[in-house]
């Protein structure tokens, strides 16, 4: 499912436009599985799955699989409907250079919400 992030994000013209000053690679940890997601000027250029020997990224978002599952459900329950809701409950850890994450917070929230069942909003 996470592989579809590229087409889902790149297919949203507004989201790509809002990310036009964003070029970075971040690490997404879903339980035991890691993904490196490379972004160039708002477009996702690659989504690679681990394990990695020496993953290099600007920042990492790490949460247990069951938490992401709730976040990506069509209508997430209270406490699972937003990245910061997960952070508030201390189940999502954001680590690394968080200036990249925070300066494009709307982009990352909307990009990751793209993995929700189609038709749902961020």
């Amino acid at each position: 499912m996470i592989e579809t992030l590229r087409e889902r994000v790149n297919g949203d013209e507004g989201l790509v436009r809002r990310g036009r000053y964003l070029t970075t690679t971040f690490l997404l940890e879903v339980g035991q599985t890691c993904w490196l997601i490379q972004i160039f000027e708002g477009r996702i250029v690659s989504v690679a799955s681990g394990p990695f020997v020496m993953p290099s990224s600007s920042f990492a978002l790490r949460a247990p699989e069951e938490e992401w599952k709730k976040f990506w459900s069509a209508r997430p329950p209270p406490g699972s409907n937003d990245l910061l809701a997960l952070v508030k409950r201390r189940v999502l850890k954001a680590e690394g250079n968080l200036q990249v994450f925070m300066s494009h917070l709307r982009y990352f929230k909307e990009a990751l919400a793209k993995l929700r069942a189609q038709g749902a909003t961020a």
Partner: protein
Amino acid sequence: MSARFEPITGRYMHLDLFGRPHRVYVEEAGEGTPLLCLHTAGSDGRQYRGLMNDARVTAKHRVIAFDMPWHGKSSPPAGWHEEEYQLTSAQYTTMILEIAAALELDRPIVMGCSIGGRIALHLALEHPERFRAIIGLQAGAHVDPYYDLNFLHRPDVHGGEVCGAIVSGLVGPDAPEKERWETLWHYMQGGPGIFKGDLYFYKLDGDIRGRVAEIDTRRCPLFLLSGEYDYSCTPEETLAVAKSIPGSEVTIMKGLGHFPMSEDPQAFLTHLLPVLEKIGRG
């Protein structure tokens, strides 16, 4: 489409607060029992546009909302450019009492959301005789910081963008898109460091956990309404406050988030109107 005007009027009030001259923007609509409305951190009085435009509220209530100094159309005081804005419990309380007195409001109902809900608890504790009823929206006794507040005010992160993005998930899932994005727009328009300065009160100075159980609802009725999807002040936190205050009445609003009056005014009114009716019956 022909032009039309809303029944809201706005005025600029000049008064001294904390020993300094201030210019404060005040909006109002309706006639009857004064209902003084307090906006959330980093936003302004436009959050109450839905109430001021609803005849079910304004037929019996004079609905008033002021933009706190530094917010909305209110100015920061002269000399602001050399200061760091930080809201304290004492300043917030003084501001509300002074503005209510300047408007000659006779024991208004006061209703505040988020930081406004927190100060409502302070008012219920310290100044119950000044109000005929107190309504706390998204009111909790304390919120632990859950992100680095410094990101709200630094030159390499756009303040408007980050403030809007920080709170976007606090809007409930069923909010109409128009009202959701109007609510976020207000956040995007805040002055540099203002949301952060308000959160100094919300997350540090305004902690009332140790005293909240001393609120006496026989001196002033207290109503607490919280949205189900608020992860900043969660329903559990509001329920805990309600449980510790005998006589308080609590409603958890299904589907709503942290900005009920602004994100979905129509849904919010289904919860608020019965409360206003009850207050009206005395």
